[in-house]
């Protein structure tokens, strides 16, 4: 398993090294990679029925439950076939389609990278590893959608799809973590066994919502469907591969994986089928009014994805079986149609059905292939699409509880599908020859190879259903977590379901025939009810968010320095006061009696100076008052015998005052800038922060955990440090490292000032 994945990933890197001479065959050469994978899975899968599922595990971060586990079972086999098989066809198709594109090397690199990621995703047996690949597919999709990155539209669509899928991805990530916490493991095989535990866990519902968010965004479910039509900016092979056949099915894959773990609850049934049903109908309805071939296909894809989700939501054995079959059906006809649409675009220069028409004369082979695929999409016998649709109807009829609603929505959607199929085929290939920018031809077998294989495959599988039955049996048994037997028949006899089919086709054809009258009405309805295109809405939301953030940022980061300082002070003061309030039980001793008279007078002088400084009318007074405070502190040091400190303080204070006085001369005249109001505000802030310091200091005096280390210094100064002056010994011996640091600070400051002045001189 690992080796095959490695081959693909290395192939992606290696694709950049293919010599120029082989450039013309690059796509075909590279298609050997998925072909190898396909054959490998075919051989392995052939024995699966006897051998059973295979689990291999490589430890990566086992402490957190992150192992690279490959779970090779029925469900993964089904997806592996689709991813590798269609991958082969897409690469062959690209060989011709991308031939003249300058960025084709990048294209091949990313599409192979995607292929590896997708194969890894469907093989993952560990949810964290699955998430890894899940994200990787989102990002490769981003690079492929933005392939023509110089166009604003492509960039925007790519970003939109990335943001939406990653948003869902992050929700999924949270959901996976919750799920892992509930089940105690991220291994799928183990989680399945703990399903009952998870379903009754109080975190079940949030986890379900988070995981569904991942599904809904990835599989383009309403109301997140809009990124998918946007993704049509990608080259057609990408649309065919990622955005119809494989990547968008990752959400469906996840549902299939989650169904045995989280499924079966009322929450699951209601939520999942509600989302699916809505999407199915909205997608089909919106498809009718499109005129761009790729847009039509995109909306029908949305509808099909909705159908699949709905079927998993109905959550009966029959519905899951129908879902698994429809998955294949859809991948076949949709990839085929996308390739055809790309081919028409390539050959005629347009994808607008209003310009196209009558191509059957210029492209006869293409016409046959397309009609086959369209018949499958419309669900007509004897194609695979017919089986799919019949089974879906059967499942819907037997829906417990809400059968009628589901059925009405289902029939309506299918009617639209028939209509769209008819329109797609008729407007492109029949009628009058349109006036297109280029005159079409059918040259290049690579372009038609893929669509033909898939279209005729639909036919063949519709007629010979045995091999398909076995594959579905394996997958179904996995999803339902019990051994089941599946047989598929093309013909179910004349019953209720067949009647519904007939009605559907008849209604579809009828609506198509009166479309001239109907379409203007629909256009009117659309302009009233669907006036807001979701994609634009999303963009506007994003713009508004950015604007909102910008405003808020401007409020916070406003640029006024003093308000920054004020904010910090106010918040800090509030925090500290809060703590003082919490610890208020510790009362403070207001016992000032032992304070000597000198100190008391000194303190009073200092307080007076502080007030003078605050109310000073000119700078000089303020500075001198501040100086008085400094000298007062020096005197207090002196009083307590710290001669060195006092000297230092006096020196520093003198220098400061002198410097200040020198500087003021250069400054403009003193003026009152602040209003009375702001002065009051400042006074309050100053008082409240000053007072908390006072309280804390008084508080600290009361608390004594331990004898201070200074006792040790006093005792050891002479015997250990050979100095009588304790302060000196502390500075140069006990705590010499501090001094070294402070010396560095001063030197750096001095050098900095020197450099600053010097640079200014140089400039002048």
């Amino acid at each position: 398993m690992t080796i095959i994945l490695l081959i693909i990933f290395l192939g992606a890197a290696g694709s950049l090294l293919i010599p120029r001479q082989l450039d013309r065959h690059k796509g075909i050469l590279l298609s050997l990679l998925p072909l190898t994978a396909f054959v490998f899975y075919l051989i392995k899968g052939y024995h699966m029925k006897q051998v059973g599922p295979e689990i291999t595990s490589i430890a990566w971060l086992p402490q957190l439950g992150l192992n690279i586990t490959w779970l090779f079972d029925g469900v993964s086999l089904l997806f592996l076939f689709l991813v590798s098989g269609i991958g082969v066809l897409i690469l062959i198709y690209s060989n011709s389609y991308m031939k003249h594109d300058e960025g084709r090397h990048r294209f091949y690199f990313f599409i192979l990278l995607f292929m590896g990621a997708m194969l890894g995703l469907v093989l993952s047996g560990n949810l964290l590893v699955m998430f890894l690949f899940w994200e990787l597919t989102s990002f490769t999709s981003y690079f492929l959608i933005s392939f023509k990155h110089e166009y604003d539209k492509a960039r925007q669509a790519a970003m939109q799809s990335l943001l939406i899928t990653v948003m869902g991805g992050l929700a999924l990530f949270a959901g996976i973590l919750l799920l892992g916490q509930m089940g105690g493991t991220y291994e799928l095989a183990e989680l399945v066994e703990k399903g009952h535990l998870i379903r009754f866990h109080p975190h079940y519902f949030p986890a379900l919502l988070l995981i569904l968010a991942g599904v809904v965004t990835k599989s383009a479910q309403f109301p997140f469907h809009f990124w998918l039509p946007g993704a049509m900016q990608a080259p057609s092979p990408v649309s065919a591969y990622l955005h119809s056949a494989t990547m968008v099915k990752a959400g469906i894959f996840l549902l299939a994986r989650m169904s045995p773990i989280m499924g079966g609850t009322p929450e699951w049934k209601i939520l999942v089928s509600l989302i699916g049903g809505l999407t199915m109908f909205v997608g089909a309805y919106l498809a009718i009014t499109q005129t761009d071939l790729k847009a039509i296909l995109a909306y029908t894809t949305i509808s099909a994805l909705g159908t699949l989700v709905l079927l998993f939501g109905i959550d009966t054995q029959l519905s899951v079986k129908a879902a698994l079959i429809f998955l294949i059906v859809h991948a076949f006809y949709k990839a085929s149609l996308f390739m055809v649409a790309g081919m028409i675009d390539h050959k005629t220069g347009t994808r607008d059905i209003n310009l196209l028409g009558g191509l059957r004369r210029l492209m006869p082979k293409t016409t046959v292939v397309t009609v086959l695929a369209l018949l499958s999409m419309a669900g007509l016998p004897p194609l695979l699409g017919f089986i799919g649709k019949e089974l879906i109807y059967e499942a819907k009829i037997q829906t417990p509880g809400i059968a009628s609603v589901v059925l009405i929505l289902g029939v309506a959607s299918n009617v639209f599908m028939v209509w769209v199929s008819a329109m797609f085929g008729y407007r492109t290939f029949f009628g009058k020859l349109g006036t297109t920018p280029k005159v079409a031809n059918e040259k290049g077998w690579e372009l038609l190879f893929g669509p033909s294989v898939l279209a005729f495959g639909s036919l063949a599988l519709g007629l010979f259903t045995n091999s398909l039955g076995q594959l579905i049996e394996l997958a179904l048994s996995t999803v339902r977590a019990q051994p089941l037997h599946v047989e598929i028949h093309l013909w179910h006899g004349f019953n209720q379901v067949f009647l519904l089919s007939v009605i559907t086709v008849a209604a579809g054809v009828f609506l198509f025939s009166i479309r001239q009258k109907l379409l203007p009405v629909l256009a009117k309805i659309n302009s009233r009810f669907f006036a807001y295109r979701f994609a634009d809405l999303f963009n506007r939301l994003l713009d508004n968010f950015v604007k909102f953030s910008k405003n808020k940022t401007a409020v916070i980061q406003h640029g006024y320095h003093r308000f920054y300082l004020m904010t910090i002070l106010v918040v800090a003061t509030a925090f500290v006061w809060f703590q003082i309030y919490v610890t208020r039980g510790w009362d403070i001793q207001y016992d000032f009696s032992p304070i000597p008279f000198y100190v008391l007078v000194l303190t009073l002088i200092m307080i007076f100076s502080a007030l003078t400084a605050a109310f000073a009318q000119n700078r000089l007074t303020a500075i001198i008052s501040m100086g008085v405070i400094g000298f007062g502190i020096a005197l207090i040091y002196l009083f307590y015998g710290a001669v060195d400190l006092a000297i230092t303080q006096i020196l520093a204070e003198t220098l400061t005052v002198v410097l200040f006085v020198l500087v003021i001369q250069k400054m403009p005249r003193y003026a009152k800038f602040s209003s009375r109001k702001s002065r009051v505000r400042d006074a309050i802030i100053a008082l409240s922060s000053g007072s908390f310091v006072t309280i804390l200091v008084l508080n600290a005096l009361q608390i004594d955990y331990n004898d201070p280390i200074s006792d040790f210094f006093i005792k050891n100064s002479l015997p250990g440090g050979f100095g009588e002056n304790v302060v000196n010994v502390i500075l140069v011996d006990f705590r010499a490292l501090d001094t070294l640091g402070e010396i560095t600070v001063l030197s750096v400051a001095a050098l900095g000032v020197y450099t600053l002045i010097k640079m200014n001189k140089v400039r002048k």
Partner: protein
Amino acid sequence: MMIALPILFPLFMAVLLLMNRSHNYQKVVGIAGSLFTFGIALALFVTVQRCGIQVLQAGGWEAPYGITLVVDKLSALMLLISGFIGVAVAVYAASFVPSALISGRFYLFFHSLMMGVNGAFITGDVFNLYVWFEVMLMSSFVLITLGSKRIQLKGGIKYLSMNLLASLFFLAGIGLLYGKTGTLNMAHLADILRNDSHPLLMNTSAMLFFVGFGIKAAVFPFFFWLPSSYYTPPVAITAFFAALLTKVGVYAMIRFFTLFFVQDPIFWHNLLLAIAGLTMLIGGMAAASQYEIRQILSFHIISQIGYMIFGLGVFTPLAIAGAVYFMIHNMLAKTNTFLIAGLIHRMRGTYQLKSMGGLYKSYPLLAVLFLIPAFALAGVPPLPGFFGKLFLIKAGFEAGRFLVSGVAVVTGILTLFSMIKIWNEAFFKQSPTEIHEECQHEKLRFAELLPSIMLASGTLALGLGAGYLYDFFIEMGEQLLDSTQYINLVLNK
């Protein structure tokens, strides 16, 4: 003795750089010095891995009386990574810092900053930490204003005054703490306080430290200095700051709140988580709204700091390990994005996203180099941002901290948006018609890309090797949460 080298060696380099002003001398000595500093850090790291916590009683005075230097797993790791980034920035600066500034002794201040940072990482003494903070502050202030452009001085003043406020709180905290406990040694403090019967008594002092470190670490609502100043100096300097300055604040917070401020966990952890959530979200929103690369990245630093505080607030071994892992990842990736912003500036002559473009077409290698750190920051698996978030959010869920974990998840999308915005505008968009003539650099030289390549390899190794590194980080988290070993070693019990 080796333990003191991370401090002494950069000092020695600074003295060497004082000797000669010549351009080449400065460059050669500056880069060689950074290499040696990294070598020392590496040797220390290996020693700690082999022999456990290393302790040095400076001057031979036993703890708690002298100053103790301690290198445990966290310190060793921080030394290692900052040394590594130091090398990258030193090399980068050689071609990106204007030559006038190089002769203006850029490398001297570079090494003195390194000295302060290393000192902060290895000191086991509260006041000594303050001294290293001052060394850092002075060196970084000189670096911000180096070249003395008007805008730099303006940013520098804001930077200086807000950080001085932080120092003030820090110093007040030390004074009170000393008043209460009579000691400055961290291990001794821890020893005294862990048997404390009055859990609330320390809260006021702790609050002063919290504010001081909060300003340094640029958490909400104290972060204003960072966006005001980071975009002003030459980008090599900003890149260096992005790696180190705020992270030292976070480091100090982790150290203090795991080692000795552990008496009142309910209040502190809730406060930390609230601050973390706001920091993540507001930083992320602000980053998303900017259109100047350096501003995007600056605000984004703040957002990422929130994740680290988040880990500290959850306070389990996994969460602490996640916080540190995330910090390391951020140091590597964020520095790298700044370096690349500098490269972009060289190509296009601007930092404004709106007037640049076409870089993908012209410089695909640069594009790849940008994507690695950008995606790493956005948390794309299997890059380290993903694992960091995995550790943190998993730990948050396990501790039942759903709200703030949710914020951490949501912030991820904001980061992605910011990064994709840079990518779209600078790389994918069509190049605007006029590019300044003098900026039309024909080719990027290897020496200019080398630092980026170094850091990107670091990022890749951190992500892809997460499985191997996990045990180390968890052991570190356990070492931090169980301080007995640390205390006993320092106090020689």
